[in-house]
């Protein structure tokens, strides 16, 4: 197991390098000019100097190498400095956003809590809704509950989040006026009343994402339970007189959770990607919204870093899913 983990970790390095190269080369083709916003009265030689100050004068491979150094060498140092109060990164150039001329990672850190709250909450909630539904509808296959449950999960899986989000806004904000349609990030939770306000503004984006996730996970849970319910060991467990509750909730559930846990781990990066749309619908200024605004503003360092962070999440969670699978299922041996 350990050698497998180490081998996968080593293999992840070229994968990540390749992905960052792909993103970088794609962005090199960008037609926009970062100097487009500079007034026309600025003489061309000054513009050329400004362009060089952004690091655009160097050849492509040098630019790529510099980005790699900044992202993988300087930024961790900044993080260490921030935690331990040391000064490793002093005087070193960090990845700078072209829009704000401030370090990209600082902006990412500012935006991260909103995304984590909304996305994280919705995923936890989605899993909590999905598991009982999946278990019960597999246990009572073809019952009314199962029919309704599979239909609802099919609908939840098919209706795109940008429609459910807009629909909820029309119903609950426009017609009923219960919840605000815009997520206010400056809102601070200090007492009970402000907590209620925070809850009200979070409920719609969280529910939209949670329903979508729950639909997918409950389908997996149901299928996995159905696979296990007909196995011989279930008959054995019943035959030796175990209670129905023990059979289903201990024996079957444990075995059915193995693939579901990996699906849950694999779904995390996709949820971050999908949150781009939900954040746009509810005007949450999280990472997804940051990506869209920086794409529109041609802020290449920002787009590069954000896309790479999304790729990093995918690679990390793939690794976690593989390792979890090996740990949970003793039949799987990678070596």
């Amino acid at each position, binding site marked *: 197991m350990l050698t497998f983990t180490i081998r996968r970790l080593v293999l992840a390095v070229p994968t990540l390098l*390749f992905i960052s190269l792909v*993103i970088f080369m794609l962005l090199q083709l*960008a037609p926009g000019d970062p100097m487009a916003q500079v007034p026309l009265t600025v003489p061309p030689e000054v513009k050329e100097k400004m362009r060089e100050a952004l690091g655009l004068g160097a050849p492509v491979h040098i630019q790529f190498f510099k980005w790699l150094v900044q992202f993988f060498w300087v930024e961790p140092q900044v993080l260490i400095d921030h935690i331990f109060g040391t000064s490793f990164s002093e005087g070193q150039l960090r990845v700078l956003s072209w829009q704000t001329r401030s370090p990209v990672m600082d902006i990412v850190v500012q935006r991260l809590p909103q995304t984590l709250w909304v996305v994280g909450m919705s995923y936890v909630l989605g899993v909590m809704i999905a598991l009982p539904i999946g278990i019960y509808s597999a246990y009572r296959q073809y019952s009314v509950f199962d029919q309704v449950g599979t239909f609802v999960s099919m*609908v939840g899986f098919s209706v795109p989040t940008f*429609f459910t989000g807009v*629909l909820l806004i029309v119903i609950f904000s426009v017609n009923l006026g219960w919840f605000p349609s815009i997520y206010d990030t400056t809102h601070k939770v200090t007492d009970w009343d402000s907590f209620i306000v925070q809850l009200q503004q979070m409920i719609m984006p969280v529910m939209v994402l949670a329903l979508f996730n729950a639909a997918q996970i409950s389908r997996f849970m149901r299928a996995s339970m159905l696979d296990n319910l007909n196995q011989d060991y279930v008959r054995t467990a019943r035959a030796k007189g175990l209670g129905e509750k023990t059979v289903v909730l201990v024996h079957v559930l444990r075995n059915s959770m193995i693939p579901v846990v990996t699906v849950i781990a694999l779904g995390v990066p996709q949820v971050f990607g999908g949150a781009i749309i939900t954040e746009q619908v509810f005007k949450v200024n999280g990472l997804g919204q940051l990506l869209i605004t920086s794409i529109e503003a041609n802020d290449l360092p920002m787009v590069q870093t954000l896309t790479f962070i999304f790729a990093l999440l*995918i690679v990390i969670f793939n690794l976690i899913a593989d390792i979890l699978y090996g740990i949970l299922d003793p039949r799987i041996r990678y070596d």
Partner: protein
Amino acid sequence: MTDLINQPMPTTPPRSQWRDIWDQFKSHRGALLGGIVFLLIVVTVFIGPLLWTADPTFIDIRSRNQGPSWSHPLGTDQLGRDMLARMMAGGQTSVSVGITAMLLALFLGSLIGVMAGYFRKLDNILMRTTDLFLALPLLPLLLVMVLLFREPLNAAFGPETGIFILIVTAIGITSWMPTARIVRGDVLALKEREFVLAARSIGTTNVRMITRHILPNVMSPIMVSATLGIASAIITESALSFLGLGFPPDFPTWGRLLFDAVDYMQQFPERVLWPGLAISLTVLSVNYLGDGLRDALDPRIRGR
């Protein structure tokens, strides 16, 4: 053996495989309904404009923001364009983008899957490429691709064809990976079967082997991923249009209509409803169709 001989002779003629599949498919009520609804949507969207001849781009500013009436069954938008005509025109684009992108992804996926499964030398490199593609963050990359290539393609093919090519290609080359994996797995198993050995022993070439013996046998997973591919392509296109990075405003798609309607959500909520319902219903029906097809084409489930 004697038991077999003593049994009465079968009176019904043997049934073909496709007949069995159709019977299983028919018994899946959701799949049948999904198929009918999807066909209805496609027919409405493509034949409808011949019957309802209003021009979806005709601007009649005096009759803007109207509710449903006999002259405009779904009302008009903020520029007085007929919503029914726009819905049908939008549907044409959305459905054609979905089907074309699915075909492209299917072609790429089957090609890579068959190549990787059939030729052992290519297996490693092709599957590593597939893994790399699976590790790419797709939605951000799609957004970047649309942003980058919109201008040059618009200049080369005109705004409508340019963006159509761009979106279809972008969706196609970012969604072939699941098909490739499934097809490779099936091809690997098929390659060891006796009929492949038999075919090889009479001197069948690789090309004939793939087209005559391998491909027909991996049709069922390909067909299932085709239906699921249409659904995801339609959702991706709508999502891109909804983020404002898809088709231009005078060239409606369902996602674009939804995006435009969000600005008028407070006054005219029904305008959000129609395109959203259309997208959801199409995707739902296609997903049910895929579910039914998967059950019908799986010989282990069939006949139960």
